């Protein structure tokens, strides 16, 4: 754990006093301190293309009065700097008369250990793995024309000091290992990408030459796409595979259930609490408590312990995801969903690991039931318009289904749907729930945070597929 005060002219006691004085008549707020180290090592085009290390230290000071947030950050932890931030906050919140709520839930559970993944594996051995990846793929097949592989590692210490001096800390490791391969055959080029990661050391994920299976998966996706035909255009049935395709849930449902959009009534879901928003058998949770997962957090960025929040239970909308501010204004409690990219940003209610739970049907039954449709196995990114509820995501591996059988692979196409109604079109829920491999980053208001998703195979009765073949 970093000591934020030992190299500064700012003593902990001074900081506590400034925080307490500034937040005296505010409803909420805190001083958030962060020390993060990160590295990125990239192999590309047969060479170690870059090796970067970054060290970032700073604080964000927040004062909240009613619904107004005043925020100021600096990357200089000093008495002057904190004082000038305090003045800036007070100048925004000229006349405040709130009551600071000192209560914050406690936890003694931890969902990951304090390790520093960057220091735990030498640069040489990381470079060695990347070179092995390159050699392995290029020797595997003559069609391999480009290989990119990279390690991303992060070690972040945070401390939250609340009015009254209460301090809450967390140390968060995070790693990711990615392989991208481009194949060329008969004048066609296609890429395949695969990655793994989470909140453990690199070697936890690379045991038993596991890097080979990452290479194989990237290669397999690219090979499938080399034979792909133009995708169909229009409304049809869609079977989604288990695991990563749950970014559909993340985009279609997850964002619309974040507290801020519902408090502001700008989400298509704001007036649907307690109502049926999905087919029976559909249960969706957002869970920050799964050990070592990319989206897991011991505490959120306001200090609230995370939890498993039931969003939709058997088709009925049960809860929104809340940070402290939106929870207070909506007369409910924080679900431990207050997150920020780093000290430069204000807290927003965000997802952690968003999961649709298993039902009892099989993927086979789903495919057999479809006369004409597509089977989507993997996706790139997605996006949603919270207000209209329309969302999209892009297939990176998909096949046509004809008369109950999986046919040819089809080119990457965008699928588009309507968030509040899509889950009512879910007619089968599989028994094969799977977590994604640990690669997701969610963007909101210019802030990226690591997230996870999970789902079983599902059958959606009607969705628009954005191909080129009419």
């Amino acid at each position, binding site marked *: 754990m970093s000591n934020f005060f030992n190299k500064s002219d700012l003593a902990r006691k001074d900081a506590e006093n400034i925080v307490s004085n500034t937040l005296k008549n505010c409803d909420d707020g805190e001083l958030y301190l962060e020390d993060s180290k990160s590295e990125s090592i990239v192999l590309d085009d047969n060479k170690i293309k870059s090796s970067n*290390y970054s060290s970032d230290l700073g604080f964000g000071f927040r004062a909240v009065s009613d619904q107004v947030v005043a925020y100021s950050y600096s990357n200089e932890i000093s008495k002057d700097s904190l004082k000038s931030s305090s003045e800036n906050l007070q100048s925004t919140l000229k006349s405040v008369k709130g009551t600071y709520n000192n209560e914050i839930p406690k936890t003694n559970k931890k969902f990951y250990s304090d390790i520093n993944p960057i220091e735990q594996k030498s640069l040489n051995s990381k470079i060695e793995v990347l070179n092995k990846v390159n050699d392995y793929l290029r020797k595997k097949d003559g069609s391999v024309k480009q290989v990119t592989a990279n390690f991303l590692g992060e070690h972040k210490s945070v401390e939250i000091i609340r009015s009254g001096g209460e301090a809450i800390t967390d140390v968060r490791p995070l790693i990711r290992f990615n392989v991208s391969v481009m194949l060329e055959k008969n004048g066609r080029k296609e890429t395949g990408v695969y990655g793994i990661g989470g909140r453990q050391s690199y070697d936890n994920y690379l045991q038993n030459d596991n890097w080979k299976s990452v290479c194989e998966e990237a290669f397999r996706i690219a090979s499938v796409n080399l034979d792909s035909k133009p995708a169909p255009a229009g409304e049809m049935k869609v079977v989604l595979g288990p695991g990563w395709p749950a970014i559909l849930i993340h985009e279609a449902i997850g964002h619309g259930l974040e507290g801020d959009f519902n408090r502001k009534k*700008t989400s298509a879901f704001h007036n649907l609490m307690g109502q049926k928003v999905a087919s029976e058998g559909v249960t969706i949770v957002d869970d920050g408590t799964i050990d070592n997962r990319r989206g897991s957090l011991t505490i959120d960025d306001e200090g609230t312990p995370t939890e498993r929040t039931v969003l939709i239970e058997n088709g009925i909308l049960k809860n929104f995801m809340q940070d402290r501010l939106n929870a207070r204004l909506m007369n409910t409690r924080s679900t431990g969903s207050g997150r920020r990219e780093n000290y430069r940003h204000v807290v927003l209610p965000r997802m952690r690991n968003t999961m649709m739970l298993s039902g009892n049907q099989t993927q086979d039954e789903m495919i057999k039931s479809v006369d004409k449709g597509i089977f989507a196995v993997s996706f790139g990114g997605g996006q949603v318009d919270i207000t209209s509820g329309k969302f*999209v995501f892009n297939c990176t591996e998909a096949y046509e289904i004809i008369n109950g059988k999986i046919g040819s692979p089809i080119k990457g196409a965008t699928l588009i749907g309507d968030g509040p109604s899509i889950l009512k079109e879910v007619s089968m829920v599989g028994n094969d729930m799977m977590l994604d491999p640990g690669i997701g980053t969610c963007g909101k208001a210019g802030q990226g945070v690591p997230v996870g998703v999970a789902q079983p195979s599902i059958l959606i009765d009607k969705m628009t597929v954005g191909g080129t073949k009419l």
Partner: protein
Amino acid sequence: MIKDQDFLKAKAVYCLDVAKKIGASDASVTIGHSISETVNFRNKNLDESNRSDGLAFSIDTYIGKKKSSISSSNLLNENLDILIEKCYETTKITPDDEFNSLPDKNLLADKLKDLNIYDNTHIDNDKKIHYLKELENIASEDKKIINTESSFTEKKTNFILANSDGFCSGYKTSSFTTSCVAVAKDENSMERDYEYSSKRYLDDIKDPQALGKLASDQTIRKLSPKKIGSEKLSVIFDKRIAKGMLSAFASAISSSAIARGTSFLKDKINEQIFSNSINIIDKPDIIKGLGSKNFDSEGVKSETLNLVQEGVLKNYFVDSYNGKKLNLQSNGRSGGSTNLYFENGKQSYDELLKTNSKCIYITETIGHGSNLVTGDYSVGATGFLVEDGEFKYPINEITIAGNFKDMFKNIFLANDLDFEYSTNSPTMMIEGMTVAGK
């Protein structure tokens, strides 16, 4: 106050000295400072104020053909010492790469033009609040508008780029950005739209009433959208979307994508990739331009590039590293385009709308549906159905798809170019795209 050049220069020189002293053969360092102040409004009340003040440092150290880099926000000398040492140690064990080097000395920028990209004016938060009040008063006038969120950001930056070949230069920039997002509701739907204005000079931003009115009108006209059937149609891209085609083009002609062989425009120099009415220019020295710069992120002088002339691809965006790989000289585009634009077409906006008896007019796309390796394009879209040049009704939940190789050849442009953004296009029509709906 934004840190002055002397402060930044002293830090840069210190870093270069440390790197040289411990044994780096070359080094390049960037020191930057930025201050920004934002005020957010929601439904005519203050919602958030946000002040940020941040220093940034990054260094590349070289030992012969080995290279490594480090960045940090902590500029205390004792921290810099530790990090530069770490960077040097990492460089030692990083493998050689024959293309690693500082840029060619004779390409470095020598004289700086005054591009008028820094306005020293400070607008305090009370004045920002006044602007946003006026804006939201207009934006929320219509009863159909149920939510407005607006913001005003003032940003000032200063930087120094220095390398061990003696280059040492930098300059201040400023930007003032105001925006409004409105939500409208009727019995059938709830819709969101926006308008914004971003300028180098405070006096140039749109007046609050005009901006608020546009945000409100653009949102209300989207209410009660319909979904249309799937068919091949001509698609008209509003200017704010049309510029996205140029951004995709810019990524596809970056020397890194070309050198890696991952662009559908590889080996297309001197080939016809657009129809012969199309010209594309990247001009770094537009006065007050949002993309204007004197040199790129390596210090190489940036000059105007004619990228596409009469439909023929003439240049890539080249940096030093990938230039060496491709046997091309850097053209000062490390970090990408500057002020990138299509030259005006010959038809007016109205004529473009009337070209086909039926077409769709797109005001927003969602999703990341551009594949620059294959050129395949497929995105979600919202907009309007246009018949005989007239807007009939709003449409949504559709996708538009094609392949850039075909789409580029079927682009027709109106003559309504202006310079609102750093990348700009006139209103654009692309014939023969696949629209997927019902």
